[in-house]
């Protein structure tokens, strides 16, 4: 089993281009959101006066998609429910915070939001959020997603995955996912490494892996 992270040094990766605007009101943030086209690569994150525009580059996009796919395969193979929200804008006016994620999923709470458009003023936040940040971000994302009440936050920097679990409104770093406690991080690293060579073969290997390791569910 491969247990290392992908080999390419982080500095060579095509991560993100970012632009930050300070001293922006919530109303101005909404005005900008509405002025922008719905379909765009650039994502917005707003928290308490600071707006960051993130334009994901090639490697960022690849890792984001692959980690999202990894989570989907885990849900499928382990018999969980899953609802994909992708980069839908999560706006919390009361918190003065809004975000467009790399990936977001309902897993444990999927039954609460199945078959409907999520209304964050009533529905729970996504159970699992993934963010890829290869270059520096000015936004304190741990504080941001903890404030939104997101139970589990996966952060990937191009080499290493950190998993955070919400406890008493703060994130504690943990070794394994809450939603998929039977899955070690090394499976993700192996999946990413294999995906660089052959995405379909990586899926086959991962699924065999889950079955062979005799995950007892």
């Amino acid at each position, binding site marked *: 089993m491969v247990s290392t992270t992908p080999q390419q040094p982080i500095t060579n990766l095509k991560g993100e281009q970012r632009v930050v605007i300070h001293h922006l009101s919530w109303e*101005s943030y909404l005005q900008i959101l509405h002025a922008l086209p719905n379909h765009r690569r650039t994502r917005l994150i707003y928290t308490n006066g600071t707006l960051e525009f993130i334009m994901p580059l090639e490697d960022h996009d690849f890792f984001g998609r692959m980690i999202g796919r990894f989570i989907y395969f885990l849900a499928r193979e382990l018999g969980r429910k899953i609802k994909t929200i992708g980069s839908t804008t999560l706006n919390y006016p009361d918190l003065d915070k809004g975000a467009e994620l790399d990936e977001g999923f309902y897993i444990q709470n999927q039954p609460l939001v199945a078959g409907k458009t999520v209304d964050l003023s009533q529905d729970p936040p996504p159970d699992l959020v993934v963010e890829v940040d290869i270059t520096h971000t000015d936004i304190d994302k741990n504080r941001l997603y903890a404030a939104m009440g997101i139970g589990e936050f996966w952060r990937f920097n191009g080499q290493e995955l950190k998993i955070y679990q919400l406890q008493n409104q703060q994130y504690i770093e943990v070794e394994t996912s809450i939603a998929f406690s039977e899955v070690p991080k090394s499976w993700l690293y192996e999946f990413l490494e294999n995906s660089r060579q052959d995405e379909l073969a990586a899926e086959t290997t991962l699924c065999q892996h889950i079955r062979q390791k005799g995950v007892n569910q």
Partner: protein
Amino acid sequence: MVSTTPQQPITALKGEQRVVIHHVTWEGYLQILAALPETRSTRLIYDNGTLEMTMPGADHEWFGRMIGRFIWILVEELSDAMGWDIKTMGSTTMNYPTFKKGAEPDEAFYIQNQPTVANKTVDFAADPPPDILLEVDITNTDIDKNRFYAALGVPEFWRFDGQTLRIYQLQHQEYVEAQTSPTFPMIPTSRLYDFLEQCRTSEVQAAKTLRSWLQQEVLSQ
């Protein structure tokens, strides 16, 4: 005389962070402009549906300011001889709704047309565009700035990439690269490189050196 460009390799320079958004309407661009704070380091350029936001890094800012200062000193020293004055526009938003173009350049100056816009707020719909406009682009930009500023009718466009200055002169609505500035034909480009090089150690000394060179070598001719 040093006639080379600054020594630092371009890749080591803190150039820009940029974000590009496509399919933005002119109205959307105006809404974004209105929503953003007036005072900000991020600059917007909008060209027919494409919005580029540029956050200048330390070297970008420094080169922009120093080249702006270079132009300002030239005009000040040559003002009596040439009968010039200067109006500094800085990064003022230049919006041209009929062209669906808007820009916040690094530096822009009225020199020949200074009397037309003196003591008033420039109205780009009625007033001429700035006489000299400077853009520093150390990293790649998605906007074709030569076409862009030619369309706006800017007579002289200075472009600096962190190492080389290129000066473009508007001829029949297109830019033609010029060896020296049409405004300052007596000033070789190497003077700017010297000035920038000297500014790295002492901005005050560099200004003094430039002024005395102008007085001794240009104004005495």
